[in-house]
């Protein structure tokens, strides 16, 4: 039932007991995801920077897509008992 899950989903993107700047886009840090499903943000960031050096000579649409692919492959994911919609740890 949604009414039982509401409080949980409220913490999906931001922890409600922590400060959240609503002007800051896409800085989602809610309840923790299963660490076996992907990397921490800092690892992805490092990996992306390294990857960029290898692909920076590609045409931009392709280079951007390769970076997006890297993040999608490595971001943590969630399929939660409290939600019908999936979670991305981006």
């Amino acid at each position, binding site marked *: 039932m949604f009414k039982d899950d*509401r409080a949980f989903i409220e913490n999906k993107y931001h922890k409600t007991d922590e400060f959240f700047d609503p002007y800051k886009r896409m800085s989602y840090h809610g309840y923790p995801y299963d660490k076996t499903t992907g990397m921490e943000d800092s690892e992805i960031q490092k990996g992306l920077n390294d990857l*960029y050096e290898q692909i920076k000579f590609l045409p931009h649409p392709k280079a951007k897509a390769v970076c*997006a692919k890297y993040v999608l492959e490595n971001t943590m994911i969630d399929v939660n008992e409290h939600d*019908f919609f999936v979670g991305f740890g981006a």
Partner: protein
Amino acid sequence: MQRVTFDKWYNEIFLTKIPQVSEKMREMNESGAVTIWADFDHVVPDWDAVLKLGFAGLLKRACDFKNRHMQNGTLTEEKAAFFDGIITEYEAVIAIIDRLYKYALTKTHSKASKIAECLKNIRDGAPNNIYEAMQVIYIYFMISECFDIYQVRSLGNGLDNTLWSFYINDLKNNTYTVEEIKELFRYFLFQWQAIGNYWGQPLYLGGTNKDGSTKYNELSYLILDVYDEMGIYNPKIQVKINENTPERFLFKIFDMIRCSHNSIVCCCEPGMMRAVMNYGATYDEALNMDIRGCYETGVRANEVSTGTGYINSVCAVLYVFSDGYDKKLKKQFGLKTGRLEELKTFEDFYAAVLKQWENLINMTMNAALEYEKYLSVINPSNMYSATIEGALEKGVDAYQCGVKFNNSAVLNCGFASLVDSVMAVKEFVYDKKIVDITELAAALENNWKNYDELNVKIRKSPHKYGNNDYETDLYTRAMSAFFTSKVNNRPNARGGVFKAVMHSAMQFVEQGRATGATPDGRFAGDELSKNASPSVGMDKNGVTALINSALTTVPSSYFESHCLDIMLHSSAVCGEEGLYVMKSLLFSYMQRCGQSMQFNVFDVKTLKKAQENPEKYKNLQVRVCGWNVLWNNLSREEQNAYIKRAENI
């Protein structure tokens, strides 16, 4: 997270390719005269294509178009890169859905098998039912915003109509009951409440079919019922209004609005359609337009309209006072329009204001003409482009120039502050000669300190926008026409045109903070007027007078959007009669081609109590500028501005 390419290419373009433009934009922002940045925040995918084809179908379609270009000998290196970007990214989207599916299979909780089945289906093809369609919309949204760096500015092309066929089929096939669908909507809509972005996530409802009948359906009511029951204000909802809009629907939204647990804006189709047709859209295109962002219009699946600069219009007056010198930049930035003493007549002064204003408009468009050449270099729109068939046919980025209407918007901010300032100078300096213009300059310089009497006189003058004052409204009409004539339909850098907008977003606060005292009696740092609304506390003749004044701006001449905020006392809209009052106001505006209208209903006592006892008013919301916020999330300064407005109702 995926900002590595965006940040690098943004800097590469602005710092190395167009450093002069970059510096000019920095100065525009620092001066507070124009707020400007490269916008990637206004796309609405072709949701019909997304849901009809699914991610796999979109990928296949892109591959098919690539092959067609190859066979036709039209696959240039650039086009190949365009298609390769789409193909790689959509393969990655499908791969993460597969990863989610496999992860779901490892779960044993009560929702796991349903989620797994959904993911398997949307990995392989188009969604089969309303839950799968919602999951596709949600996944598209998240990946576009978080991984592709494009804000998705509407959920569905009219969520009720986008999901209608799924709804009907699910009921017919006993896939879901109405109650189960309601429950799914609770989970779906609540995602955006939880995301909690300040500007809100838009979706719109309704519209008109080609035969003139309404597009409102059972699902429109179901969505509103769920939204109302949850008491959320995000997503924000735009409702298309026309003569055919069922009274039952109208009264439902009015009731929600007056109960202050809503985030709803009324978008009047006749005025909006006229606006869209003014830049070349056909009747059918206008009829099917999307509402996007706060209340912007756009031809469905065939228009990109970027925001360029938010022009702080009252700066045109301030630059006349300083002969174009900008104190923040410590340099000449506006035009030299002559020393104040040389402006012997109001005609001299008014001409100078228009010159300064035109200069700000040109400065904005000139910057956009340079940087908008590079939008797809900075941020190729792989996700979005795949949804736009026309872009695939051409083999060019949809956000750059791949749609039929590749437009750019220029925003008129603080317009009422401009009108009121011009009228104050006319009345007090030139007509009544109560104050010399150099003395008025001194008053502004001192932020009205020691000029209290003059300040009160000016603020009390009836010659203010929003009062249906004859002369003021003539100047309003003239200045509005001046702005729109300088912007509308001028070619932009992407094969489209510029469009005028009467919409301030947060700039009425941000630019207000950066703007010194103004001749209308406003103090330095105070809010500027927002949208097509009057300056705070200046409309004193009631709501009909306000509507009449607003209509003199000719809303449909603002091709992208135009919004009027109406404040009503709760006692004016109570009971059944109150619903008819709201309908009458809205319809009188709509019938005279107004575009959008947003209502704020409250009384000053409630607001004051809420300020003193915030813990008792945790759910009190106010409409800000295209979105709602909780009263308790406003600063005291912002709350005071609302109280001041409410005192005037």
